[in-house]
């Protein structure tokens, strides 16, 4: 068994691994280092924090620290000595490992624009990745009126929407002709842009930025088409890049991320990598679900609970999570074999496009109010066969199984339908009692005993009596 495990990174993946290991007990020694000075927090809730409804304590995560985990926050690992199986920290400590885990995540990309190339970013230019970034954005936003967001991907739009919700004037600048081009098609993106506009977010598409000018009073973004925008704050949301610096320096095999196999091992079998910094096959995941799945597999392997556990990637689902926008995207929306289902209602900002091949969902884009979204995501995630009634994929509960409408008339009830179960009285019997002269609810009840049990059918008996009194001469049975 592995005795000393060292984890580099106290982000979403590292924290998860620590608690998975701690939950499995055993007497191994686990040491974790995190550059960020904070206790573990949920990074994806930073968008919500930015939107202002919650406070910092609300984004904290449960920590395994103290439960067999030795956690050092605010400590950065500066080097890996594979020979000696030890890591060095910026405090000058040297810590030995039997197994080392890289969970260093990724860093926000700072685009190479004029004005951003000199190391330190200007105070009014902030990326959006960490709690500290969030604090900086909020500190400026407090006294700001106008905000620019560079990048119309998932993160940029979440930031834009959150800041607009605080009453700021927000403009998103995106170099591609449509938003979230990696997940959406142009129609979906257009629907999304309209929804954003209604929420106070303006979009400038198909135009790259060229330069940033910032001083203590404001920031100006210059665009390739000659225009420029002034604002109090510029948020950079230009994508992320896996943090592979330590791995590269230690001569591990690195592609775009640290290369790992199905057991999350790097080219050194005593070192693993999980989360945003890892590259499994061709894939950089960049999402929490796979990071946690990897943490779980690695914990099984390292704890010996299941030494042959393997990471099996599942197809990613993108979900934009922000007030007033409901967006889900999965699979490759491009053309492919199979059927395609679409639904568009521009007036309500609703769009759905689903691709089905061999009875399985291969891709879907859902924007706006799509009641089937939960079902679609599950079917895609689990690879289960789609319903034969395809309409339910678009309309969800609205169709078939939805809440039934109250009947407009008892005329449509079959005579054999039981009205009172306590006394087993069917509609035919009620009608019969009417024919024999019962004319009020009480008389019908007296004649049939319907409703004399628990009484919950009284309404129905009354309704049928009412109806009988209006259709007296009509043949009422069918």
């Amino acid at each position, binding site marked *: 068994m592995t005795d000393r495990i060292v984890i580099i990174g106290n982000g979403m993946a590292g924290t998860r691994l620590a608690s998975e290991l701690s939950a499995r007990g055993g007497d191994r020694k686990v040491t974790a280092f995190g550059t960020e000075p904070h206790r573990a927090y949920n990074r994806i809730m930073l968008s919500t924090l930015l939107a202002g409804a919650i406070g910092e304590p609300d984004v904290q995560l*449960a920590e395994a620290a103290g439960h067999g985990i030795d956690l050092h926050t605010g400590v950065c690992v500066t080097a890996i000595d594979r020979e000696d199986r030890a890591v060095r920290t910026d405090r000058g400590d040297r810590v030995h490992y039997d197994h080392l885990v890289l969970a260093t995540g990724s860093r926000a990309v700072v685009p190479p624009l004029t004005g951003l190339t000199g190391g330190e970013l200007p105070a009014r230019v902030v990326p959006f990745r960490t709690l500290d970034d969030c604090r900086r954005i909020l500190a400026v936003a407090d006294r700001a009126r106008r905000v620019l967001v560079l990048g119309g991907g998932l993160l940029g739009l979440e930031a834009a929407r959150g800041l607009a919700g605080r009453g700021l004037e927000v403009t998103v600048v995106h170099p591609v002709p449509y938003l979230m081009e990696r997940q959406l098609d142009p129609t979906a993106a257009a629907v999304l842009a309209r929804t954003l506009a209604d929420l106070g977010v303006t979009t400038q598409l198909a135009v790259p930025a060229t330069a940033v000018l910032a001083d203590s009073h404001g920031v100006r973004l210059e665009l390739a088409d000659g225009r420029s925008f002034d604002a109090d704050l510029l948020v950079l949301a230009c994508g992320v890049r896996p943090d592979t610096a330590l791995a590269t320096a230690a001569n591990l095999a690195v592609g775009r991320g640290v290369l790992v196999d199905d057991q999350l091992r790097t080219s050194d079998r005593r070192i693993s990598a999980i989360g945003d910094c890892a590259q499994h096959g061709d894939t950089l995941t960049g999402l929490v679900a796979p990071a946690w799945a990897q943490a779980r597999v690695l914990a099984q392997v390292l704890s010996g609970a299941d030494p042959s556990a393997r990471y099996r990637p599942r197809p990613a689902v993108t979900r934009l999570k922000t007030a007033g926008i409901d967006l889900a995207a999965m699979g490759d929306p491009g053309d492919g074999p199979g059927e395609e289902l679409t639904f568009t209602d521009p007036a309500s900002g609703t769009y759905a496009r689903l691709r089905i091949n061999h009875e399985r969902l291969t891709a879907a884009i859902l924007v706006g109010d799509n009641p089937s979204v939960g079902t679609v995501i599950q079917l895609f995630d689990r690879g289960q066969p789609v319903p034969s009634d395809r309409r339910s994929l678009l309309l969800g509960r609205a169709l078939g199984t939805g809440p039934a409408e109250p009947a407009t008339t008892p005329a449509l009830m*079959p005579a054999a339908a039981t009205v009172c179960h306590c006394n087993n009285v069917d509609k035919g019997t009620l009608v019969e009692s009417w024919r024999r002269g019962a004319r009020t609810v009480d008389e019908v009840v007296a004649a049939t005993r319907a409703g004399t049990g628990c009484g919950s059918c009284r309404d129905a008996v009354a309704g049928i009596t009412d109806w009988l009194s209006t259709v007296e001469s009509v043949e009422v049975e069918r």
Partner: protein
Amino acid sequence: MTLREADGEVAVLPRWFPTNQGGLCQKGWTAAELLDHPDRLTTALLRDPASGELRPASWDAALDRIVTGIRTVQANHGRDAVAVFGGGGLTNEKAYALGKFARVVLRTRHIDYNGRFCMSSAAAAGMRAFGVDRGLPFPLADLGTADTLLLVGANPAETMPPLVRWLTEQRRRGGRLIVVDPRVTATARQADLHLQPLPGTDLAVANALLHIALAEGFVDHSYVAGRTTGFDEVRRAVAEWWPARAEALSGVSVADLETTARALGGARRAIILTARGAEQHAKGVDTVTGYVNLALALGLPGRPGSGYGCLTGQGNGQGGREHGQKADQLPGYRRIDNLADREHVAAIWGVPAEEIPGPGVPAYRLLDSLGTPDGPKALLVFGSNPVVSAPRAARIEGRLRDLDLLVVVDFLRSETAALADVVLPTAQWAEEDGTMTNLEGRVLRRRALRTPPPGVRTDLELLAALATALEQGPGRPAGRDRGPALSPEPAVVFEELRAASAGGLADYAGISWERIDAQEGVFWPCPELDRPDTPRLFADRFSTPDGRARFHAVQHRPAAEQVCATYPLHFTTGRVLAQYQSGTQTRRVPALRRAAPAAFIELHPDVADRLGVADGEPVRVRSRRGELIAPARLSSAIRPDTVFAPFHWGGIARANTVTNDAVDPISGMPEFKICAVRVEKVAAT
């Protein structure tokens, strides 16, 4: 109106149907026909050693056989080798007498009851959060005035018709009803919003709702600070449950989760209720706790018109668990492992406290140990039919067969009675006086409407007779001078119960039959006759030592058994006391179906299509533990990844042959609500 239209046809909403002899809690209001049913037992039955058949016998012969059997077993294997299995349908008096009989006459630690299969998860969750377990800490009528009512895994429209009145009232006043259920039940059809999660994911839904409540500012922070403990850990635990994550797991959309959280958080009065659907899981206690956490975070418990509650089953689900037929309890919801509690009860019983045995084991473990080398060799069953109602029933049936002595007290020849060595005919509710306690903690009278038929004795009479017989005659255990007083009179037993419960959590000391009559039921705790009872709990404090409610951080975990290639579908069970009659069915299956519902397996049409099964054709549901065969009932009301069967039937249609016997680590509740199965077409013969 309760008329509903579905698929162009109209039917009256299904309602309660009183047929539940095989189920969990026996019905109080057993239908009139049952009283004079031709199958009604009016004589004791003894198994004839030669033929192996159950034959009519005299009471004396039957009691003799029981006494000899018990003495032999106890002489050879010790006192704990005799066990007692009770029922949630027994009156308070009977539940009390049964507990006392086990502890004082048999002096065995092994007593538990079928309510374990019903209530135990909610009871344990309530205990650990509020320090007390009363189904509803407020009167049922409060449901009628709730602005938002969240029902989790509850289908009262089919299982508790009296409650539907309050739901109707609630909606008439413009309140919102939200139902969480994997199936589109009769109750779900009435809801303003129906969340249809994958079975076994209710806890993830609860955590996501709290996540949203936090993110949108609905948490009542001053309540949390002033009246609770442990919130920080819960806050961090639910930070992991952002809605999109719960959505992928449960299939409930983010939008629906948000609507629900807002409806609860924005309501002036909101009530959250859980029932079997959330509770009958190996994580039942944690699931209920998830919803309790949500209620506490929103500041609901103790606020007038708001709160958390659990819908108990029928019969005496609440009272049946308060007076000592639970393995770890003494009357008044006292703990059997607490010294002061033991001493109090011992004084009432007139025995030394150290003579009261310690805690036994929960129902399933008890049943699963029967006839094994270390387990009981004799069992007395009252008001329960475990052959049908226990999980993994085929195995339990085998355990019962391994017993040296099985005694079943029933009024019909149930599936369990059919295995017995001795069957004793007992009275039905309409033939006995007594009290029951409903889910509101309200103690109600049951009045005898007629006398039992000749040859039939009440449970109290036969317990008294059995106690006397065991304490007398040759071979009587040495070292005891006087027999314990076990009265056959319910009024006398109730007086004793009052004294035994005095000072306990469920304090009945101030409740008399006269008072119950005068005020239409009395809410416990009620320590004094001339002081008010307690319709609403928690107004000022919770029943915990420090008066604060306790949060417990809980996390979703997968069901004990996961679907796989061999067993690709989820299987869930439940109660259907109603027959949903669409015109089509009525035409195809004539009058037959009107009388009583029959066993069925509910399948999504797509699943049936793949199997090539038509509506009404027999199908087989197979799990690792066994199989069940019943006609398919096609319905788009069920998820295509799930099949459902009601658990009321025995024999080949017994759903519990298939269910999983994994149990909750805290409550011992078996995982009735989810296991992995495959469904097959039954080849025509």
